[in-house]
């Protein structure tokens, strides 16, 4: 196997591993992020409708 084949195989392992790992982390922590975003948007909307509160 030439050196390029070895290099691309290592790249593929890093790329596939990173892809799977980041997906797992995003799956676990992203939901909390999403809820926080929606909460902030609701708050902003409420402040726009009731600027005095």
């Amino acid at each position, binding site marked *: 196997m*030439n050196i390029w084949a070895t290099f691309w195989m290592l*790249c*593929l392992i890093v*790329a*596939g591993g990173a892809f799977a790992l980041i997906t797992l982390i995003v799956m676990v922590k992203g939901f909390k*992020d*999403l809820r926080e975003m929606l909460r902030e*948007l609701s708050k*902003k909307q409420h402040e726009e409708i009731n600027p005095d509160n």
Partner: protein
Amino acid sequence: MGFTYIDWIIVVVYLIVSVSIGLIGKKYVGNVASYLVAGRELGLYVGIATLAATEIGTITFMYYGEAGYKYGFAAFVAALIAGVVMIIVGRTGFIISRLRKMKLMTVPEFFEAKYSRGLRLLTGILVAVGGILNMGVFLRVEGEFLMRISGIDAKYLVGIMTAILLLELLYTVVGGMVSIVITDFIQYILLSVATILISIYAINYAGWTNIVNKVEATMGDGGFNPITNPQFGWTFIIWQTLLWLSLHTCWQTTAMRMFSTKDAETSKKVMTWTGFIFLGRGMLPMVWGIAALTLYGTGALDASGIPAPVVNGETLQPIEAMPAMLSQILGPGIKGIVVAGMLAATMSVNSSYLLGWSSVISQDIVLPIRRLMGKQPLSSRAQIFVNRVANVFVSLFLLFWGLWYEVPGTVYLYLNITGTIFLAGAFVCVVGGLYWKRANVTGGYAAMLLGAAGAIIPFFFLKWSENITGFIAFGLAALGLIVGSLIGKASKPGAEAVEFNRAATEEV
């Protein structure tokens, strides 16, 4: 192997859940900033999900699969450049950090802040035309994928793709960026699961040693070494580096994610981590393409010595090899998950692109024209309405363009060139505007016009290669900015223009 009942159930359940959840976004849309940039409330993890989902579509898998089939492992260099450049942009905050601090909503908005309203309008037109033409081929290519993998008869394809487009349009129009972010999160997870599943199946079926041996036997050293492969070489590497630098910083749909983050620091982190995903976004589908070559590359040789794919006695095009392989190797249930994952990829890209290009039409074409005509700025509600109308207009165009337009050459090439038409000038103008004090309106116009001419004339009329065309487009745009700025008058500071625009877009 066709679609079974269990596959259909998985796909239909995904569609119902995805669209229903997308519609929830409507109740969070207050002003135009919440509609276009989700109120700038994106956190790190959901930011990664929405950026990755936006830039990973079925079309991405198709053109990278085709590249893997035709150029072997050497094609990996394109994925490596895309990922590494993204990580560097994220780590340094080059361009994205400064643009985020300006609280923009679209890329052409910067042109009014730094240069002039007229240049914003010109850039808006070029960005919208180039972007919509770029997106114009998505439906057809995505349809081909679905047809091949599911075995759906070609006569139903137009109806199915129209229905998918309408579903995407529904939640995009109703909830804007908020709906897109919510659906992107689910779609990202599903498409990632599908990507990992396909990779395992493809490598397992074809066998790693067989894959390497097939590339060696078919392409020789050129199948591994991007420097000696005639399709690539140093010109390709330098052009792709420039192209990805501009895509990661100035491409409207990517930039909108950066503008939607909580702050500049979050935008840098989102970009960095998504860079690692981009390595897999390219290399994994390329391996699927190479696996398809290994399993089905037995037909007549083309001019480059690459055998045509033959599946069940039918000779196919290289771009069809990967989905045809998946239809053969995936079993019931798994195929349903994969197709749902690919539909998720399709819908996340299309909805984001619909919003991206329609926002340029509403914010950077319609609004500046009204202002140039001396009309009052539109209210936030009216701006959202204009954007929704633009969304419908873009969708209708896509439907008709996608039905009759045949892509000249490879899809990857077409996408690169339609993007370069505006990216070369836009990137040079943004870099000059942010980092060079002498950059002015004359230089800005020269860069945009020469960048577009540099992409269109050499490629479409002189028939030069895409590598040379890309070089010329970026080179002419840079030359235009430098020479134009040196001979033109200095621009006025743009901070007031940004503030004025902010008042017009958010507080009216």
